[in-house]
């Protein structure tokens, strides 16, 4: 099956990119080996944002087309997005400790924005679990997902401002590797890692989507079973919505 091949490609590219990032590319002149953490950290962050964008757009798709497949994409995006967000934060902290001397730095706008992103979408996932009816759940989730997505640029903007007014001497930024002046080897390694992660992302999205569809089908089957049982029990049985 095509998805399985995709899975193997993902595995191969991730392993290769990791090997390059850890053993092939040289350490940074200033940051040393800690710089290597940036590759999976930045890649995870980009995929987190991509995932949540997919969730928001799929939510709109559901509200518009009322096709539950959109909602399956939405939940896949949210769950996988939460995972990559957690990775991004973890990577940021592992980088921060050797470079800043602390695990957390309030003045780093990207770290704080990403933490808020995690809060928004963990809330989204928890919120989803409270509704059993698939269509109601899809509608409610879509709305919450859209408002969360609308909030993200506001958060980003305001946190940047927040930091900007407290200029400390030199807060080393984790994103030096994105600097246009960065050595091409670094950029190349980052792009390779990003490509590998994106393939893995695609594979995981497909699998999670399949799972979501299967779960809805299962829920529907259970509901029909209960309906039959209730009918068999007689007109006094209450049908719960």
């Amino acid at each position, binding site marked *: 099956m095509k998805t399985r091949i995709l899975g193997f490609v993902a595995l191969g590219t991730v392993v290769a990119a990791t090997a390059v990032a850890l053993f092939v590319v040289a*350490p940074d002149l200033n940051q040393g080996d800690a710089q290597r953490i940036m590759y999976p950290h930045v890649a995870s962050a980009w995929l987190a944002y991509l995932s949540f964008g997919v969730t928001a757009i799929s939510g709109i798709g559901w509200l518009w087309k009322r096709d539950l497949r959109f909602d399956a994409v939405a939940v896949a995006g949210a769950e996988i997005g939460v995972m990559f967000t957690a990775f991004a934060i973890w990577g940021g902290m592992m980088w921060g400790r050797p470079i800043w001397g602390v695990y957390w730095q309030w003045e780093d706008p990207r770290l704080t924005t990403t933490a808020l992103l995690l809060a928004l979408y963990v809330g989204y996932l928890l919120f989803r679990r409270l509704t059993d009816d698939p269509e109601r759940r899809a509608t409610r989730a879509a709305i919450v997902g859209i408002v969360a997505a609308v909030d993200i640029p506001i958060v980003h903007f305001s946190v940047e401002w927040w930091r900007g007014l407290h200029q400390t001497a030199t807060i080393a930024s984790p994103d030096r590797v994105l600097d246009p002046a960065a050595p091409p080897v670094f950029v190349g390694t980052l792009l390779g890692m990003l490509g590998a992660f994106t393939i893995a992302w695609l*594979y995981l999205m497909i699998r999670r989507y399949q799972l979501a569809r299967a779960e809805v089908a299962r829920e529907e089957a259970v509901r029909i079973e209960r309906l039959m049982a209730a009918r068999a029990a007689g007109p006094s049985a209450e049908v719960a919505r």
Partner: protein
Amino acid sequence: MSDAEFVIAAYAVIIGGLGLYTVALWRRLRSIHGPDDEAR
């Protein structure tokens, strides 16, 4: 390697986490399709 423990911790959790999530997905897919089905 300088700061080796942080680099290893970062990669272990991220790459390992990807692997664990993948396996978890496989398990959930297998259980919902029934162990007799070909789920992959």
